[in-house]
């Protein structure tokens, strides 16, 4: 959803009858607030729709509202490997502690690669930034195949790259990673996992994990791993889950804060400039533009102390929720 369109509409409403003017900074604040509000509302709407479906009050096909909501939520879906504490701390720190992403709203699931095929340190950069070379291992004998996962850390970030070709017993090629040069230096510690052996780790409440670990039948193991969440850290069980790139997170992130940017003034008015580094459109779908504008107008109505603007926005939201 283009942020300039939204701003123009909001200003048009706010300036009607010369109600008032909204600065870009204020608009950005309200835009962020409104987007977050709507984003969180998707989940509640989704739940309400499921309840309606179970009550036979919701249809299928074009009447499948929950499907549309799920599609919107899925646009915020992210899948990344997590960094474990061994890579950030030294000493006898537990290495099954993985740092959670800072921008997550909801962790959907955690995945664990259960079969490590090879591990070591790269010995050359022949082949460039998409080559994994190690003369001390035999990738072919280890069973590395196209599609397997090669993990390493670059600039403090874990990257799980996908093997695109097994060139020789000591050399692999991987698909390049957008926005990062992953395999460009010698001496990189790596782990290679079989893509066919991946299982979901189950989130277990802190109140249950001790009993679960003491349970003969259900103690977490590599086939049925579990994790608990301690602040912004996920603790994996069994504790043998501690390698680079072995633990990945699939989560729904927060939408990026929208930023309406300008570079210069024209006739005293800021001139929209989408080339600024911090420019950011709304990430919500275009179909939500009316309600988003209404929400922003609500905030603006409070700022410029215009009851009419506020009432208009409130009525628009109420109508949309019916």
């Amino acid at each position, binding site marked *: 959803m283009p942020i300039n369109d939204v701003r123009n509409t909001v200003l048009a409403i706010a300036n009607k009858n010369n109600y008032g003017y909204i600065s870009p900074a204020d608009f950005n604040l309200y835009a962020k607030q409104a987007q977050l509000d709507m984003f969180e509302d998707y989940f509640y709407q989704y739940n309400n729709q499921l309840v309606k479906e*179970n009550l036979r009050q919701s249809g299928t096909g074009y009447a499948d509202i929950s499907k549309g909501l799920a599609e919107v939520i899925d646009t915020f879906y992210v899948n990344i490997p997590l960094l474990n504490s061994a890579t950030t701390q030294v000493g006898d720190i537990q290495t099954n502690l993985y740092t959670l992403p800072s921008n997550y709203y909801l962790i959907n699931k955690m995945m664990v690669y259960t079969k490590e095929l090879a591990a070591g340190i790269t010995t050359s950069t022949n082949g460039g930034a998409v080559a994994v070379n190690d003369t001390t291992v035999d990738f072919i004998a280890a069973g590395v195949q196209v599609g397997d996962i090669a993990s390493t850390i670059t600039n403090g970030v874990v990257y799980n790259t996908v093997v695109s070709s097994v060139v020789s017993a000591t050399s692999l090629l991987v698909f390049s990673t957008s926005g990062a040069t992953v395999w460009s230096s010698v001496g990189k510690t790596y782990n290679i996992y079989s893509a066919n052996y991946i299982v*979901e780790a189950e989130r277990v409440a802190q109140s249950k994990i001790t009993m679960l670990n003491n349970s003969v*039948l*259900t103690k977490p193991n590599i086939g*049925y791993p579990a994790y608990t969440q301690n602040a912004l850290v996920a603790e994996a069980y069994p504790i043998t889950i501690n390698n680079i790139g072995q633990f990945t997170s699939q989560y729904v992130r927060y939408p990026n804060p929208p930023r309406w940017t300008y570079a210069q003034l024209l006739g005293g008015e800021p001139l929209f400039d989408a080339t600024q580094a911090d420019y950011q459109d709304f990430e919500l779908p275009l179909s939500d533009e009316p309600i988003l504008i209404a929400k922003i107008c609500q905030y603006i109505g409070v700022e410029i102390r215009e009851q009419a603007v506020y009432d208009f926005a409130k009525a628009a939201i109420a109508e949309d929720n019916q």
Partner: protein
Amino acid sequence: MAYITDYEYYQNSGTIPTDANWGSYQFLSLADIVNNFMLMYQGNHELINNIDRYQILFHAKRGIQELNYDAMKEIKILQLDITNQLRFVLPPDYVNWVRISQFRDGTLYPLSENIQTNWSSAYLQDNDSNVLFDQNGKALRPQDSELDLNQMSATAKSIYLNSSSPYNNSEGWCVDGNWYFDYAVGARFGLNTETANSNPTFTINKQSGVINFSNILGSSSVVLEYVSDGMAGGIDSEIHLNKLFEEYIYAYVKYSILNTRVGITEYVVNRARKDKSSLLRNAKIRLSNIHPGRLLMNMRGQNKWIK
């Protein structure tokens, strides 16, 4: 068990052991059970939702255990030489025995259980039969009771049966296949059918985890047929279930969860219970392999003369 090629099946893709996949198609892995259940029987539109996977895992394993106890006929067999104390140590996955036999000279001789105990614990006592204690107040115990020593030395008496012998029905000792008797003086008692057998008898000491034998030839070994709980020594990847029980295990897990959840109406629980019970019956019938060919073979025996 995933679908595999013929080469994987017969030769395990050339990997040792090459027979690892033989017969594997008849089984369903625990991973498949849990995965299928989570996928098909729990969710936003199913009877069960918001369930933890470990709960499914628990109920699935419990269901497999129950099936192993009586329905599946998955008999395990272990042959071992007995210890010099005439004991057979129970296998680590032992739950209950089916049959115990003595393997001697190439033949299996089924043994009978002696419900008269041949083992006991004991306390040390003085000449006045007072129990002796240590400084902590615990009763002192001998390593073996007299009953234990009696069993280990194979000195327990038994009834000798041989109508052509003057010692027929006499109490005696069978040691290494030879019988020894007391002088025939004093009262005689009725035949003890549990011990009136030329083969050794056994008693299972569940607390100690051993099978005690009355006597047994040194050169023979013992074959134990037993049932386990199917937990494969705690290795989840090796736990599997016959496919004939697949529908039953889903019904079992579903019932177990519905039966313990808050707010489930009773008729739903009852429906799940009946579902489970009928599927168990179906699976047992299927597993019993009753089919015309087998019945025909049995019916042909009706004309056989019993001499």
